């Protein structure tokens, strides 16, 4: 196990920069998730830690060692790929033991390690099969088995669950988390799925266009997003962004068009009359006869909750209720936001004014 330090790391392909100086500190035994939309540079960063991409600037340390110019085989890392990358001509046991064989470990030792890893992952009965004879979930486990037999300093996961169906994905998510709690190996995990990030991570690194937008514990990012991008990316369904003006004279409020104002608990750095974005999570509204009126457009009941797509003034917002409610399209209902958990963002920079 080891710490991983990423210092001012940059990546450019010929003249096109894709990562513009990223700093991340990963503690020993920590489970860190790199999350962001496609093309944000998260996979590239992971591949730079693995040594599969060169580092154009800055440095990466694993433990005390700068590994910029160390070939992948000498970095003592294990990686799980999105398409598993199992060797098709080797059995499950051979796949898992390959790295140990390359290290010239004695055969009985290899067999013992493969067996114990296989037991952890419930693969013991599949050791003689070939990858093509396995289901998607089993292949996924073999890929993980191949990583854990080595007892490496760092595990790297590159979107390992994106090829699985929804149910299996949830199951494997739990398994990976359990595995981490058991092995306590430093882990860097890449995903574009914020639910995976929220549920698995000790620490989330939100990336966007080659920069780090925010680093923090999952609930920190949910409660105190540093900017509008993080606020919109973390949480599902995502946060409503309502355009309007901050009014501070009298009772602080947020005016959305004429005659509609949302209560402001805290205005933070906002000034009177400032154009701003009011950030409101769909789950942070309640029905309130004294509230602001919204017109129901569409309702999406899922059983446990109901999502209401509605119009506030001229802007569309989503509201999530945990109660069994039924509304019809066109109906006008009154809601109140919970002001203590709402956010204000600067209209031009997107920076949080209340964080």
């Amino acid at each position: 196990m080891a710490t991983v330090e990423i210092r001012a790391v940059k990546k450019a392909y010929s003249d096109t920069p894709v990562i513009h100086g990223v700093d991340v500190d990963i503690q020993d035994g920590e489970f860190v998730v790199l999350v962001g939309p496609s093309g944000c540079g998260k996979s590239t960063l992971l591949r730079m830690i693995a040594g599969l991409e060169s580092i154009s600037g800055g440095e990466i340390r694993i433990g005390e060692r700068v590994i910029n110019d160390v070939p992948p085989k000498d970095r003592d890392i294990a990686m799980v790929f999105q398409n598993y990358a199992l060797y098709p001509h080797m059995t499950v046991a051979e796949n898992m033991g390959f790295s140990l064989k390359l290290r010239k470990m004695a055969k009985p030792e290899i067999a013992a390690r493969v067996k114990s890893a296989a037991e952890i992952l419930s693969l013991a009965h599949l050791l003689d099969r070939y990858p093509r004879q396995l289901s998607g979930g089993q292949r996924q486990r073999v890929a993980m088995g191949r990583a854990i037999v080595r007892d490496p300093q760092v595990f790297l996961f590159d979107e390992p669950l994106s090829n699985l169906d929804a149910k299996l994905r949830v199951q494997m998510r739990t398994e990976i988390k359990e595995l981490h709690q058991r092995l306590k190996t430093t882990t860097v995990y890449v995903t574009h799925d914020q639910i995976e990030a929220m549920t698995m991570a000790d620490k989330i690194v939100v990336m966007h266009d080659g920069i780090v937008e925010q680093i923090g514990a999952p609930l920190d990012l949910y409660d105190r997003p540093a900017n509008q991008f993080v606020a919109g990316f973390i949480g599902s369904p995502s946060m409503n962004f309502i355009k309007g003006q901050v009014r501070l004279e009298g009772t602080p409020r947020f005016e959305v068009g004429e005659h509609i104002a949302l209560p402001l608990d805290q205005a933070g750095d906002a000034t009177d009359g400032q154009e701003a974005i009011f950030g409101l999570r769909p789950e942070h509204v309640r029905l309130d006869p004294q509230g602001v009126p919204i017109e129901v457009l569409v309702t999406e009941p899922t059983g446990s909750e109901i999502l209401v797509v509605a119009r506030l003034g001229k802007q569309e917002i989503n509201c999530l209720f945990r109660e069994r409610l039924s509304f019809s399209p066109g109906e006008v209902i009154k809601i109140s936001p919970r002001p203590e958990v709402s956010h204000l963002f600067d209209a031009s920079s997107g920076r949080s004014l209340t964080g």
Partner: protein
Amino acid sequence: MFRDKAPSWAYFALLLTSFGAVAPLAWLFLLSLDPNQGVASTSGIYSLKNYASVLFQSMMGQYFLNTTIVALMTVFCTLSCATLGAYAASRYRFRGREPIMIGLLLASMTPVIAVLVPLYAMAAKLQLLNTYSILVIVFTAWQLPGTLWLIRSFMNSIPAELEEAALVDGCGRARAFFRIVLPQLVPGLVASGLIVFVYVWNEFIIAVSLSAKQDMRLVSVGLYFYLSDFGVEWGKIAAGAIISIIPPAMLFLFLQRQLIHGLSAGAVK
């Protein structure tokens, strides 16, 4: 895919095609059994005399040996060079990669006749006429572009992640290639190797120009000389031709599964 029962005209079309392919062979076979010298008609007498004469009273055995040696060496040289070239062309990005590949393809379209005279002059100057080496060198050069293209497309269908997993697992580039990539490439190598082998087996113009000395002839050249010495010996030519079909046919038969796998790889996920 059509899953209905095939209509009768489909059978008819297939039969017609099969007849077109098999009839000349059948005719050849009948000729080879005829001890007389007809070609348009057979005399109705059948014997294995022609086969005995080709096998035991001619240099045919030597020709077979020559052809096998040259074909195997050509296959080996072509596949080795093409695989390394294809690896570079498939896995590395470098300036001029596509122009080089297109250039290779264009070069391979040169008709053989156009370079025969300079080739002969070069071979004579290097004192390589009537040797295995000159045939292997020229055949390899001739087959390399097409084979490189073919193997590159096989290589492109092998996910780069396999190699990357091997790098992370503890291999260097070379070891990852030999332990992980090469085994995946076997069907492609078999298919390309067979194509090269059959090419050498059938090649005539280069072989007759560069290696016509009696004990250095290839099978195709050997057969040709039945035409000239004492008139046209149709029966012996036919018997020789039938015998010369056997080795490549056997190869196809044994490697059929690999070949089909290789030729259709990557076509359907």
